[in-house]
């Protein structure tokens, strides 16, 4: 390996730092092709091999700036992991199995029991939780296959979740803040994924 090849290697290492394996492969191939074209063009203009290599490397610009740019548009390793790990959840959610409906049904029965016993606040909390769960389990049957419909569904889901979290953590602001920040983190990763992936490549759970 020549000095310039190892310098290009160092540039690529910095520019692809933190990206997912697929993103790294794509960037490496494209930049190497670009570098090769730039070297060939310089050699054709009569430059020496050393000058051509130096000019091609300089034309790539600052590797750290490129890394920042790439992170904005390509999947990072943590986002790729999030997508992989969320796939089991999406399979469960989008399986169109009717068994999960037993949970909200059982919850509804329990809510009725609590209401009859006079434990109204617990019954309300349970009713709200189960109504949201039923909506979540019903999502595979709902016609949510455009980004706009996904936004509407998410608005409803987040309204339910925030109301549930507020009720469950009544009088405990730290608990409300912790649960809310977890929700905010999950949604921020999903926003980034929605921005980076073409709509045609969105898994079902990104709509929800």
């Amino acid at each position, binding site marked *: 390996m020549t000095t310039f090849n190892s310098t290009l290697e160092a540039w690529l290492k910095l520019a692809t730092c933190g990206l997912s394996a697929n993103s790294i492969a794509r960037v490496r191939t494209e930049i190497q092709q670009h570098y090769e074209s730039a070297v060939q063009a310089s050699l054709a203009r009569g430059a020496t091999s050393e000058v051509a290599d130096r000019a091609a490397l300089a034309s790539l610009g600052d590797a750290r*700036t490129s890394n920042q740019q790439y992170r904005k548009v390509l999947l990072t390793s943590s986002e790729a992991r999030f997508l992989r790990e969320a796939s089991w959840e999406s399979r469960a959610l989008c399986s169109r199995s009717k068994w999960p409906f037993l949970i909200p049904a059982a919850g509804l029965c329990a809510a009725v029991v609590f209401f009859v016993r006079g434990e109204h606040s617990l019954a309300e909390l349970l009713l709200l939780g189960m109504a949201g769960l039923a909506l979540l389990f019903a999502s595979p049957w709902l016609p949510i296959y455009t980004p706009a419909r996904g936004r509407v569904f998410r608005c409803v889901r987040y309204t339910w979740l925030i109301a549930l979290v507020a009720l469950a953590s009544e009088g405990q602001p730290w608990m409300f803040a912790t649960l809310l920040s977890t929700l905010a983190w999950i949604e921020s990763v999903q926003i980034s994924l929605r921005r980076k992936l073409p709509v045609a490549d969105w898994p079902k759970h990104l709509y929800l």
Partner: protein
Amino acid sequence: MNLRGTLPTLILESLEQEPNHGYSIAQGIKQRSRGVLDFKEGTLYPALHKLESDGLVESYEGAENGRPRRYYRITKDGHGMLAKDRAEWRQVSRAVTLILGKA
């Protein structure tokens, strides 16, 4: 001069002429602007990837002189976006000229 934000439009314009690969797009922009617009490749490719994920360009594997190259071509949505950007640029350019005067 701050020309941030113009790169995607320039890429779309370049691809409207013909499908091309990254190096050729960069060289085309540099030559047509007589060397004034010399975007670093490290910013060109992220812009191309963003245009691709927005559905404004699409990429495919091609070859140049027997060497594999990733080519990009403008999509129907890309043509629409370019027409909109051109109209906006003309409007802004006219407005700035009114203030700064003609060169």
